[in-house]
Structures are given as structure tokens and as C-alpha cells.
């Protein structure tokens, strides 16, 4: 993955309006369940270009940054 990749996300909205992403839909039909969110903070992504809320996600044993930038979700590119 080299580019900023916008993705579809299934998320849980609690009654206070807090958002927890649950599943990432990869566009090619594959789905990635988020096993655990280890950190949530406001952050910019210099690598992929964007800013918003950054969820540090563990997916199949790997760490990925998932960003909620305004209303769209993207995965920060690796490397």
C-alpha cells in the first residue's frame, strides 16, 4: 500500500456521539476486523496528507493507523 487509501468503515456510535471503528472494508470485497484499538488521539498524517482523529488499530496482529478526517476514513500508508 503506497497511497492514501480511503476506505469504508463499519463503526459503532455510542449515545454520546463517540465513534469506534469495528470493520474496515477494503474495496476489493475483503474485510478486516479491528481486533483492538490501542490509542485514540487527534493527529495529522504527514505521510498520507490529512488530519483528524487517529485510531491506532491492531488488525490480524499488525498495527495500522486509521484516520477519521472530517467525515472520511483513510488508512495511513506504510513506509
Amino acid at each position, binding site marked *: 500500500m503506497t497511497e492514501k487509501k480511503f476506505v469504508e468503515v463499519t463503526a459503532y456510535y*455510542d449515545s*454520546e456521539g*463517540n465513534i469506534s471503528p469495528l470493520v474496515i472494508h477494503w474495496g476489493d470485497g475483503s474485510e478486516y476486523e479491528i481486533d483492538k484499538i490501542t*490509542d*485514540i*488521539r*487527534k*493527529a*495529522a*498524517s*504527514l*505521510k*498520507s*496528507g*490529512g*488530519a483528524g*482523529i487517529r485510531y491506532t488499530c491492531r488488525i490480524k496482529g499488525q498495527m495500522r493507523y486509521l484516520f477519521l478526517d*472530517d467525515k472520511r476514513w483513510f488508512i495511513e500508508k506504510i513506509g
Partner: protein
Amino acid sequence: MRNILHSDCNSFYASVECLYRPEIRDKPVAVGGDPENRHGVILTKNEIAKRFGIKTGQTTWQAKQLCPELMVIPPNFSLYKRFSDMTREIYLEYTSKVEPFGLDEAWLDVTGCVPNDKTGMATAREISNKIKNELGITVSIGVSYNKIFAKLGSDYKKPDAITEINRSNFKDIVWPLPVGDLLYVGKATRRKLSGIGVHTIGELANTPRGVLTDIFGKWGDILYTFSNGYDSSPVSEYTENSDVKSVGNSTTAPKDLTSEQDVDIVMNVLCDSVSRRMRESGLKGRTVSISVRDCNLFSFTRQRKLDEFTNITSEITRAAIRLFRDSYDWSHSIRSVGVSVSDLTSDTTAQQISFFEDPNKNIKLEKLDLAIDGLKNRFGTFAVCPAIMLIDKKLSGFDPIQEHTIHPVGFFK
């Protein structure tokens, strides 16, 4: 002495565009009107474009002639507005006195808003880092004891810099600058000053006040005040809309709160400030709200209606703490807490005397608050406090009320 910051986002529109387009970051970039349109002008340019002589206000086709490879991006104002709002949210974590000046600049009065041991410089560094990490853009910040010098400080060194202008260095930093650098000194004023041999801010400061008022009238007085660092105009309180519907205070704690005692301490400080402000404004309120944000940025608000209108510190504090205890399960430590009181009425409104309660009890508590307010007004916020605040002075050592309680609007508004 006041601690005033002026924060200025560097090449604001261009920086936001470069954040979103990593591939153009090392190229000359400007945000501006269509180069095909002869009237389109450059609104902002990045540092690289600056080196080609690109200037704000140039027509886009002129700029293209100076630098044919210049990337000219059409403005996306809703995106800039979003970033402007995000910077303001960060500023408001430090103080409620945030006075925006355009989309990309703001004054902050952080006097007494942060734990005692933190200087204006340390706060400026924190804000600068936060904006860099959270928004991916940079700011220049001026730190000073008045708004005029703070503004000069943010212009002094760019990008991504902090300049402190204090009483001992202002003659070295400010006085050699051209008068035109002073806020609101335009071409006409500059020309007149040049006519009497005044070219620098220092020369202006050392011109007798009478000479300036003879030439400029009241404006001469302002010039004298600005150039000598005598400006005492306050930083306005930030308000979404100006009519008061609630009185509130919130704080991002100097460390994460991990126990009920921590929260009690912060609640005591906040409620003391809120209820004092209500008394100063002649208000009582009936609904107490708390807002809590945990270290994962999860937040909630809760509110509860009281039986009677009140502005008694101990009643508001008790209600806020009880509301917190009833609604938080301590799944995470807490980053920030806020308290506000709404459903306001004038404190002269006749009170219904409760059938079962001792009517003299409230009068006693009101007298107590009155006495404490008197002490605090004379000797400062920390003169008297509940014993719990002595347990952790790091948590209790911020003063949301500060010294300046009158909030007229900005300079010439």
C-alpha cells in the same frame, strides 16, 4: 503582569493544501485565483514560492511569470475554516480569552490560566507542538505583556518560531523595526511620520506625546501608547454568540486525573470560578452541567436540575461532584473536565422559600461567599480555598478567573 500570546499560522492556506498533497510539498505553491483570469490574485504562498519573489496580492499571471513552475491551487475555504476552528479549539484548552484576528491569527491571554510554574513561553511551546502534531501545520507565536508586542513577536521570526518580547528586551527587538510593522500603521500614517523624521518604532516611542497628538489627534496618543508598550487593551473573551446563556469553565488538567480526589480538586477550582463569575454578574442558575473527556478523547456531558436557583459555591460544587460520581465508571483516566450552570435568572428574583428547609441556611452561605469574594478580590484567588485544594497544588494551581474581569471588545471594534 499579563501573559499574552499572539499565534499566527504560517502561510495558512498554502500549508493546509501542502498537508493534503504530500507530492507538492517541495514545490513552489500558492493558493489563488485562476491564472487564466486576469484579475485572479495570490492569496497565500509557501516558503519556496516566497523565494521566487511571489507575493500576496500579486495577480496570478504576474506570479506565473516570475515562477512558471508555480503550482496555483484554487482556494477551498471550507477546509481552511475547519482548520481555523481546530486551532481555536486548541487555544480554548488553555484559556477562554481567545480573540481571533482573521482565520489564521489569534490573541490568547493565558495569565493565570495554567499552573503557576508555567511561563508564557512554555505555554507557547506546548501550543506550537500541539498544532504541529494534531493539525500538521506550523505557527509563529509572539509572547509578551501586551497585545501589540505579542503581534510583533509572531511576525518577528517565521515559520515555526516563538519570540518573547518582555520589558527588558523590547528596546532591542521592537524599537529598531520600521513603524509600518506596528499594527494599524498604514501608508498614510507612515508618510506623515516620515515627514517628521520618524522611521522606526523606537523613534516613534521617543517622540513627545504632544507632538504626535498635534499631528494625529487621538490617534497620536494610540501610536505613543503602542510603541512604548503601554497598551493595556484586554484580549476579548471568546464567545460563539454573545448573549450569556450559561456560565462555565473547563480545563485540560496538567496531568491525567486518575481518582475521585483528583476530580474533586479540579471541580472545586472550576466551581469556585463559575459561581464567583455568576455572583459578579448578578446571576443565579438552576441547571448544573458537567462535561468529561477521557484520555481516549471519549466524552460525555450530564446535567441535572437543582431544586432552586443558586450561585452558592458549595451548592454548585456539591452538585457537580455528585453528578460526576453518578455518571463515571472510571474505565479510563480523565483528561479534561468542565462545569457550567445554565437556566439563569437575575439574583434579585424572589426566591421561593422551601417548606422544609431552614431559610436562614442559604442566607448564611451567601454571606460566607460574599466574605470570601471580598478576600479573593483583595488578596487573589488563592487567598482562601477549601483544604482539599492543598493536597495537590499542581491540580489546583490554575486560576480560571484571572485579574481582568471586564471584557470590552477588541481594539477598534
